[in-house]
């Protein structure tokens, strides 16, 4: 459900599922936990392929941020309008920085 790449030493995790909902959330949480094991503090979540995120999906994304620790930095890239609306509604746009592309997210993160 995830594919990863590294851009300028920043781990970019792409969600390859169309929906991130209650049925996918536990697996997503487990996989991200495995990827960030061993002190990863910066993470870009690429949501370009995701059409829909429900409350459970949002919950696991926040739990990912918490896993990154107090100095952790989680950025969202490529979220569609529905997903952006969810972030806005729940004010997660104030917690995560939201960008159009992973590259932009990485650049912003390193700046």
């Amino acid at each position, binding site marked *: 459900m995830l594919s990863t790449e590294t851009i300028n030493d920043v781990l970019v995790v792409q969600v390859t599922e169309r929906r991130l909902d209650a049925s996918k959330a536990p697996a997503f949480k487990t996989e991200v936990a495995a990827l960030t094991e061993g002190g990863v503090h910066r993470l870009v979540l690429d949501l370009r392929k995701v059409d829909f995120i429900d409350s459970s999906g949002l*919950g696991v994304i926040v739990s990912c941020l918490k896993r990154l620790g107090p100095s952790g930095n989680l950025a969202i890239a490529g979220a569609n309008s529905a997903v952006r609306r969810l972030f806005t*509604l*729940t*004010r997660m746009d104030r917690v995560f920085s939201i960008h159009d592309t992973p590259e932009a997210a990485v650049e912003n993160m390193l700046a």
Partner: protein
Amino acid sequence: MKIRDLILVLTIGLGFTLVLVAVLFLRDELARLDTAQRLQASNNVRQELLVASTALARERTKTFLQLTAYHHAEITENTGRLRRDADAALAGARMALAEGEALMPRARQSADILAEAQGELAALRAQIDRISAQGNGNLRRREANAWLTEATRLIDQLQSARLDLLNDNRPSDAVLAAEANIRAFVDILHESIAYNEAIGVALLASEGRARTDLATTLQRTIGEIDLAWQLIGYELDTALPPSILAAVQKAHENHLRTYNPLQLTLVNAAPNLTMDVMMVAWEETSDQRLQELGDLQEQLIVSSRSRLDSLVANAQRSGFIVGLATLCGVLAAVLILLVIRRRVIAPIGRISQAMVRLADNDLSTPVPRATRSDEVGVMTNALRTFKANAIARQRTQQELHRVHEDLKATYGQLRHDLEAAATIQLAMLPAPDTVGGISHTGLYSPSSLVAGDTYNVIAQPDGSVGFFQIDVAGHGAAAALVSVAGQHTLSQAILTRRREDRLEDIVAEVNRDWPEDLPYFTTILGEIDPTAPVARMVQAGHPSPVLIRSDGQVQYIGGSGFPVGMLPQARYETLEFAFRAGDRLLIYSDGVIETENPAGDLYSEARLLDLIAEHSGGSTADLLTALQKSLRNWRGRSELTDDVSVLVVERTNSRSNHAIH
């Protein structure tokens, strides 16, 4: 047809064929034995007849010579001994005929002929003895000629009887046939030489016309002798025993060397000239030839008899062997049948019965342990394995069935529990009512039995009416339990609210105290002022509610806010908005706008707003019914994937409302 019957039929067929072949062989062997025995019997009679006719021929010639008294005194033989020889041979022939009566069709007839010949011979001898005693020379010579003729006739009868017997039982064996023929020809030779011995002596003593006749007779007989030798010569092409061949050739050579020159001299001799010398020489030579032919005859008889004996012995031996082989064959067939029955048919029958019963799931069928390592043993062991596997499989199935029953029972219990929980959860929702001038109606549709959605409307001590809707992240039992906790917490917070506590403080406090390991929830917490035409609300991650004005205008109000239980330090704001009599606030969980149609499109805020606008003129109940119907149509055949709940609060035209005006 069962294998058992098939093997039975095949084995019996094999045994029967074996017996049939053996019987055919045995019949042939018995026929050979019978033939050999017939030949032997016939040969015995013919042998005696041969001896008899030989002896009689000599008796005849010697008696003739005695009667005519031509012969020299020294060469006169004792006719008594010759008579005894002839009688003994004739008696022997009759005895042999009696012994072999069953084997020779002509035995009785031949015996009668012999008896008659014996009678005639006895009469002739008596006549001769009487004449001899008288001593009249002329009478004796006349009687001598009569004797010669009669005796010769008797000899011919014996020979004829012998040839009849030979023709009845002509041997198929080439050597035996050749020997029989040679014996017949040698007999003719013997008879002819014996006859000519008498004729030759008579010829030497005669003269004139009688001499001419005798010479003619002599020469005719000599022709018969030559013919006999010639016929014997033909038989020599057969593979005769070497001793017989040598004896025949020697006799012929001796004949050609001694007898032929003498007969020429005899025919051409002058009368009375050398009578005595010639007579002696003729008699001597004739007797030598007769002796030699007698010996040859004896050799032939011995050879034929031994050959016949060996033929009989062979036939008996082959008969015995074939009989033994037949017996062995039958025994083998029976043995094979018994072995196959015991080692194959019976165990296969038992195995097939066990297989049929096992196939019928009768696992108590006993399958005894195999004691053999052959195919039957392998089959038995395979069947035992099959049975063991079947028993194991049956146990597994029983175990599975038991587990399944347990699961069913557990599931039933769980479902029962959930149904009870659902009843309780439903009971916790406020029924449509009017509290402090505020009427409220709800719509509640869980995706499973219980829901993570809940709502409540509570009149506060100060007269204001508090309300909230909660949507716990996720759904199902866990979300339902959390929703109960959330409802209790918010309800208590409203009931125990102090006058100075603002709405956003209540939400912030709940958020701060919310256990980290519980799912978060979104909520709209609001209150309707009893004294002023306003209402206030805190939006915490919940979708923006719809404000339905009394005149039918609809609009979303609010914007955003942190969910409760996600970030402990989150801050919240209270939104205050005009809420007059007839105004309605419709709060809904995200399950409404996120309901998907079969194509995957969301119901969306826009459609919700359109539907509400369409029905904003009607009653709240009608509006909710229309919404429910619209959502169901949108969803199509499928079940809901998320909990759906709606709460509508309305300021009625109450006393407090009038107070404002």
